[in-house]
């Protein structure tokens, strides 16, 4: 079999738009997923108060977040994306938003994809965040509370800054994972890199070249990201040894 990459040159704009779409989708998903994960982690670490109402609310929240994490981790992302797109975002329930970003990103597909990936990422990252918070020495909390600071102030000024610093590499790795996993959104028609590669396949009647180029472009996104993470990880460790 002969490969003719030179014939792919005319389709360059498709790949370019696909890369941009993939990066925007992944970056937004990681940000929203992280915010969601933070909330879920804090709920799962919260202890009930003394009143019956507080105990009931706490139990319900623990149940909901536990269920959320189990469901997301126990079902394929492909299925999740399709459910969000066809079941959640249907005209009877939630109409698809209509807007356009950078001329390539349309809201009716971008938003369902974003919601699906964020929900997925949030469940995985929640457990990472929980580990990060639990990894902060309890003596820190005791010292902070002994100074008269509240539970919230302790979490915000003392525990979270230290916990998040510990898990930054894991969060950054999640970004790499999402760049790759976002390719499943092609099945609902989101015009990210994978979908555009498939379109080039159809237009050029060449099956191999567009896929190989897509793979190369994914590597171009993931390898530098991993390298940058590794660099910051090393720098952060050096900071601790001062």
């Amino acid at each position: 079999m002969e490969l003719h990459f030179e014939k792919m040159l005319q389709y360059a704009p498709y790949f370019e738009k696909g890369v941009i779409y993939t990066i925007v989708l992944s970056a937004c998903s990681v940000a929203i997923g992280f915010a969601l994960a933070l909330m879920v982690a804090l709920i799962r670490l919260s202890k009930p108060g003394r009143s019956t109402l507080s105990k009931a609310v706490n139990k319900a929240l623990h149940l909901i977040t536990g269920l959320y994490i189990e469901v997301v981790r126990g079902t394929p992302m492909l299925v999740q994306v399709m459910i969000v797109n066809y079941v959640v975002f249907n005209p009877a329930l939630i109409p698809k938003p209509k807007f356009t970003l950078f001329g390539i990103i349309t809201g009716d597909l971008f938003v369902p994809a974003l919601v699906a990936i964020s929900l997925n990422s949030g469940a995985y990252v929640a457990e990472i965040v929980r580990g990060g918070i639990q990894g902060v020495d309890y003596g820190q909390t005791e010292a902070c509370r002994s100074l008269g600071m509240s539970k919230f102030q302790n979490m915000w000024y003392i525990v979270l800054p230290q916990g998040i610093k510990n898990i930054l590499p894991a969060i950054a790795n999640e970004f790499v994972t999402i760049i790759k996993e976002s390719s499943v959104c092609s099945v609902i028609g989101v015009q990210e890199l994978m979908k555009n590669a498939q379109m080039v396949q159809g237009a050029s009647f060449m099956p191999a070249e567009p896929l190989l180029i897509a793979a190369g472009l994914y590597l171009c996104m993931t390898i530098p990201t991993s390298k940058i993470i590794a660099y910051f990880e090393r720098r952060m460790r050096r900071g601790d040894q001062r």
Partner: protein
Amino acid sequence: MATSGNLIQVKDLVKTFDSRIHALDHVSLTINQGDVVVIVGPSGSGKSTFLRSLNLLEEPTSGEVIFEGVNIAGKGVNIDAHRQKMGMVFQHFNLFPHLTILQNMTLAPMKVKKMPQKEAEEKALALLERVGLRDRAGAYPIQLSGGQKQRVAIVRALCMEPEVMLFDEPTSALDPEMVGEVLEVMRSLAREGMTMVVVTHEMGFAREVATRVIFMDTGKVVEEAPPEEFFQNPKSDRLKDFLAKVL
């Protein structure tokens, strides 16, 4: 040391772990203004648990801790408001590693007392000056020696202008040559009339600085006496036994 009015009154304090083990077995004690109470005893005797119950870091199973007339172990008490008047120093310093020494000291005054940053910093620097660490204000905890960390931990607590200072084995995690510098800061605090409750193994400090020494064993206060009497004339066999081992 002149004693006037009781500051903390502990009544019948009980702490059980797993509803079986009695860490504190009906402990009652009064701490007066200006007292320097040193608590000694074998490990596992409940002395740290007792100290940590005073500011509710350890929640007692039953009993009362009356601080400035309020039972802070009762339900519906805003514990944060009372804790800020009780400074605490820990065995492992517990400085905040992501903040500079100055930030470690100004955080609580600024966030809890709403003190303006400038005022909080001036106060912190004056206290650092006092313990000879003013030039380390911009450093991070990791850059300090153990003795320096513990001195910072003490002045961090002092920034909140506490009514009483609680010390939980403040020199136990230090290299021997650094114990002296920390004890010196504590001595000078005592001289100024600060009310202090100290859990320690430093018998020399107890003998020299304490107004009262308390011996705890198996969750109970076994003996309580002024230092001379405590060390020269122990009454119970358990204390005699303990002193024979540590002196």
